[in-house]
């Protein structure tokens, strides 16, 4: 059984917001890339919407991460070694926070360029068309996968109860981020569809959401099993946190119902919002419960 005598780092609202926004930013970029690569003409508009989402979220990520620091004006110390006489850049491949700082910076560049290309008044075809454009999108999508997932690994690379007792958080955050992104994009596309745009893509996005929710469910089960073996399951689900996890599981129902052909649950309109609420609540449950 794992025993922990650590103090909590008090990563709270800012960090939860970051984990939520990073999951959606990375996930939306990945899905926009997939939509771009399908080759279906009706997916162009959904892909464009997908590329509009990540950059504003990356700005939000940078803002909340900076505000969470004890000395926000020293945020650049994440990248540059300020030790007197040392100089150079900071990069520790074994520290997810160090790698994540660089990944977020790079993803910011990719998402910014893609954002510019997706603006309504941008020239068509833009600089992201053709082979070079596809390579750019794929590179950005790989960074998006990392941004959406490394936050879970960051929690695990610690000595905190629950977080360090499981290997599942990175995979769980990724599946959850993709699920939330699919729901968000489906909702955005559906709004455009109502305005007269083709209504084909959002239904496939909801199907993708169903698959992602299934993967998320798998990782939630693995999470409970792994912390159960470590002896810290009681910390994760004590008191109101058990209710939170039940609500997280409930939030998967609309997306999973999509796979079962029960489209009515999602078509009701509140399905995507429920999915997004679940994405946020899951991160709150993981991050806060272990620190109490």
């Amino acid at each position: 059984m794992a025993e922990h005598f650590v103090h909590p780092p008090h990563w709270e609202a800012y960090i939860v917001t970051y984990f939520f926004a990073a999951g959606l930013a990375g996930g939306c970029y990945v899905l926009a890339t997939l939509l771009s690569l399908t080759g279906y003409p009706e997916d162009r508009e959904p892909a464009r919407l997908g590329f509009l989402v990540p950059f504003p979220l990356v700005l939000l990520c940078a803002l909340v991460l900076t505000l969470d620091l004890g000395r926000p004006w020293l945020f650049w110390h994440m990248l540059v070694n300020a030790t007197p006489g040392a100089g150079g850049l900071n990069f520790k491949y074994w520290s997810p926070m160090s790698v994540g700082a660089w990944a977020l910076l790079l993803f910011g560049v990719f998402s910014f360029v893609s954002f510019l290309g997706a603006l309504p008044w941008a020239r068509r075809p833009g600089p992201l068309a053709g082979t070079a454009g596809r390579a750019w999108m794929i590179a950005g999508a790989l960074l998006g996968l990392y941004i959406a997932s490394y936050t879970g690994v960051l929690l695990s690379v610690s000595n905190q109860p629950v977080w360090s007792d499981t290997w599942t958080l990175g995979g769980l955050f990724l599946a959850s981020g993709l699920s939330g992104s699919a729901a968000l994009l489906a909702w955005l596309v559906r709004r455009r569809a109502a305005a007269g745009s083709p209504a084909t893509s959002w239904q496939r996005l909801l199907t993708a959401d169903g698959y992602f929710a299934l993967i998320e469910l798998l990782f939630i089960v693995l999470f409970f099993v792994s912390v159960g073996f470590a002896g810290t399951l009681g910390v994760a689900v004590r008191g109101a946190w058990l209710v939170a996890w039940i609500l997280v599981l409930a939030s998967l129902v609309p997306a999973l119902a999509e796979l079962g052909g029960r489209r009515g649950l999602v078509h009701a309109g509140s399905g995507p919002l429920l999915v997004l609420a679940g994405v946020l609540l899951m991160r709150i449950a993981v991050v806060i419960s272990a620190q109490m």
Partner: protein
Amino acid sequence: MFTDTSICIGCKACEVACKEWNQLPGNEPEYRNDSFDNTGELDAQNWRHVKFIDRVPEAPMTTGNGQAWLLMSDICKHCQHASCMEVCPTNAIIRTEFDTVYIQPDVCNGCRDCIAACPYGAIGFNPKDGLAHKCTFCYDRLQANMPPACAKACPTQSITFGPLRELHKKADERVATLRAQGYDQAQLYGRDASVYGGLNAFFLLMAEPEVYGLPNARNAVLPRRNNRGGYLGVLVSAALAMVAGIVALRRRGSDTLQDTTPGEGS
């Protein structure tokens, strides 16, 4: 530094000396209803903390076998393999010329990753200055060839400072003496490399480490151990998700536009 808990009397002179030398004002007083401990824990204001562990037995004991209290003056262990140093993204945490672990206050930006990593809870965050703080081993005193304030103040010489080799020898002799006297649980913690490669602040304990709130050798593990498993989980999730995403987004169901032609790049 060697702390022999068997001769600690809980006077807290070490706590006072630490606060005085390092100009730590301390936290607001609060009633803890917890034996004689009015400090609580190591944090940004308390770099030394005398633990009072109540071991008063429920049943009457025979003469010489009673054990009322375990006392331990706790401190940052200045580990050879330091979890805090390992994760610090700014490289604010360095190893000094004295082999101690030191947080550079002008480099730290208060991300608190070190607090999540330290298995001993030895690091605290001070919201007033936005920095992580812990014992410096009185770095300034060491530079002036003086012992740390706690070791200087300890009236029973429970806390001793000096070259590690000499302290190891002293500790080995002391634990051998205690065991010869019948204290079977007397043991050294951090004397060898089994705990974080060895501790520059090591202890003689009178019970198992867990009783004192210290991880045993099996649980004394570095944060980076979870990188491999964590990223493997990400890879599995990413692979499943990409297959699922491609299947879902390329599939054209009955409710999609059947008359559009695939293959046109966007």
